[in-house]
């Protein structure tokens, strides 16, 4: 067993220290060490996007990221978006457009959708679809998720 490593990083705007095993994933750290369960385990190999988080502003799969590599970086999880107007707009759009069913993929979808909107002002549907290609959903058939992202973009523009 590897010894634990002390790291310090900014988590949802607040500086955190944590002692993590060197082989631990950021996902395990967030859920099991820090108790933030909004980031979901779906596959553990970067195929489903349920564990999407933002690191230094870019979306990453927390299951592929070594927890130790969070050291000195800025990490945002779904819990960190509670007061973020752009995220709230998306979350409202997800509810109003029926983009949530079982909801297990939803936090990851919301985070990734936020990146799509941050990059492109008015993304077309194809751009939204490509942007969500790393986020699996088994319930909705994606259409209403795409609708929600499109609506949030329009609302922001209005």
């Amino acid at each position: 067993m590897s010894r634990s490593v002390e790291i310090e990083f900014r988590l949802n705007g607040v500086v955190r220290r944590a002692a993590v095993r060197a082989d631990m994933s950021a996902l395990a750290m967030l859920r099991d060490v820090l108790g933030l369960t909004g980031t979901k385990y779906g596959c553990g190999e970067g195929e489903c996007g349920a564990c999407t988080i933002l690191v230094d502003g870019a979306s990453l799969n927390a299951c592929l990221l070594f927890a130790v590599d969070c050291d000195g970086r800025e990490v945002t999880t779904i819990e960190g978006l509670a007061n973020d107007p752009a995220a709230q707009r998306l979350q409202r759009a997800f509810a109003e457009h029926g983009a949530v069913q079982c909801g297990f993929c939803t936090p990851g979808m919301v985070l990734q959708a936020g990146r799509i909107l941050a990059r492109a002002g008015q993304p077309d549907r194809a751009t939204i679809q490509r942007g969500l290609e790393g986020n699996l959903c088994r319930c909705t058939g994606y259409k209403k998720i795409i609708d929600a992202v499109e609506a949030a973009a329009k609302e922001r523009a209005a």
Partner: protein
Amino acid sequence: MTVIERATLIGKRVPKMDAPEKASGKTRYIHDIDVSGQLWGKILRSARVHARIRRIDTSRAKALPGVHVVLTAADVPDQRPIGVNKDHPALKGDKVRCVRDEIAAVAADTEAIAQAALALIEVEYEDLPVIADPEAALAPGAPVINEKHADNVAMRFDYAHGDVAQGEAESDVVVEDSFKLHYVTHCCMGVSGVIAEFDASGNLLLHSNTQVPFLHKREFAEILGIDPGRIRIVQPPIGGGFGSKLDIYPFEIIAVYLARAARRPVKLVYTREEEFLASPTRQPVILRLRSGCRKDGSLTFRSVETLHDNGAYTSWGATTPFVMMQTFSSLYRVPHCKYHTTVAYTNNPYAGSFRGYGNLQATFAVESHMDKLAEAVGMDPLAFRLRNAQDPGEVTGQGMTFKSCGFKDCLRSAAERSGFLARHAEYRAAQGAGGRVKRGIGIASMLHVGGGACGTILKLDDFAHVTLMTGASEIGQGSETVLAQLVCEELGLPLSAVTVVNNDTDITPWDVGVHASRTTFIAGNSAIGAARKAKAKILAAAAKKTGVPEGELDLVGGFVVRAASGEAIVELAKLLRGLHFSDKAELVMTTHYYEPPSVHQDKGFKGDVSAAYAWATQVVEVEVDLDTGIVKMTKVTGAHDVGRVINRLGIEGQIEGGVVMGQGYALTENLVIEDGRVKNPSFRDYKLVTAPEIPEMDLAFIETMDGEGPQGAKGVGEAPAICIAAATANAICNATGVRIYELPFTPEKVYRALKGVAPKVAWRTRAAA
């Protein structure tokens, strides 16, 4: 005078009540729940497909620091086998029959320690011959997989109406083909998990993802030999169901055994790989279909034989013939029909229930043949189907009575909106033309049942807030929103005035579980029944208080009003407080138990099994790349007879999700099993449809206002996935002239078929042999 406007939520786009929680990541699924003092459970599964266990040594695992309990079958002599055939012990003792077989389990302080302990368990196997093919399992002298079934037959079904020989004699055209349907699995985004804990008195509390909590409760009572009243099941929100949580599985029992032995709560959660290896699948089927018709296009007979690979143990997959035979016998008018199924034990993974329950498989074969027969008699696929489609009022050979039936409207609507006939002719004419990408269009339809019974308890507090306690679980499909809408409609309240409690067997009334597209219909009727009783009680009290006759009162917008004018008479909350705090201290609390007016089938599988029947037609458009075999699904046009739309947003979501699940079944998903081993237990190689791949979807609802349905509604949960593969097969044939009899239509399979190098599915049935 204050007039209260009447507003209805029925048919509106009503957001799901739980969506804000879920979208903000606050919802706690089973994986997110920890219980004080909890240990982690892990299961050791067989390294062999079929073997005798010579020896298991757990001493090194037991010695690992942090390990509390290690169990093998020898430690639980009171095991009772589970499953539809009661052929499945949770922990296997002397023999393993399948790679998912559980042979030992560990409870430890952490997941990592439990995992490390598994690696320290030594198992000595003696290999037995592997039966990976159901035909081989039925061969004389085949090794026996389950000792109680020496012939390796888990189940048989025989159904008949009419006389197929006579039907064949009357036929101008007869076609016969074999079809092969593959393994797919549910892939719920939330992996399976359970937390088991006993209190100091030995009462069991299970945090469980089951879709059938009341059936589970009874079964666990039998397993533990305790009174069912001592078992409570709490269901946290579930990360997807689709039928996967309809049976009881070894991991749940093992968690209970571990908790019992450790006297500590035990949490057991799968990895994704384990989810692929150890979850149920959709039933794989080999199917031989012989059908005939007259020159005028009327069907004469249908004769079906299927062979189901049961896997090593019997779960719900074995019983899918119940639903399959309904499609064979009753989707279209068939005067003579015969169906035989053999369900054979093998060493493969076992199939469970999965959205559609055999109907995808049956519809694939039937609708492929409808196109072939149409072609043979020179009719277009739509006219041929309309010639044979059921009408309202029809009683089928299997005894189903279609009180409401929008089948022909579905056919016409889907065909018209997709431009089916013109495109079908155009693409067909272009088959021989140049170009490496061919377009095609195909049509298919389905019939599906729904049933079961459900109870509701409803209470109104002194602020006119309603708590609806229902046995119908929410599995993401939006049932709690629909039930709340139905109650609001009766009581004239906004959605915000309703809380739905649906997740605790100590509180909610009995329900048979979430399956069979039944929740809106059955639980909806139950909720309406309870709400109507509450309304009657309230209006009687209001009449007494105001002197206005009951019959002239109504509940609108939180007020008791004059029904005719809408004039507000008294605020509902105020009236309720008056009742609560009067000398008689009355509470408004009602119960209702709804049992649909369906009948049980007789021994010949005949009877009107469902109170209502759902219908749908789907038209699929594809592009086929002749250089690669890649089939791109470009558009799906669906017409669904749903009785009535209750929540438009919810029903669209159900249908779109089902369509894309059907797309996966048709094109991309394939759980590859070779010699009993799962070859692709990950999302890397088990391909779910992703966002860029979805087709354009155009949906229409045919509202037939079913007389028995809540507000006229019928079930819809399973319907949308059912016809997609069948319509896709027809579309590929329309594009290329090549018919493929085997799913899924992965690029290589399609390419081989286009090149003519794919062997046609051939299965000699026992009857033919």
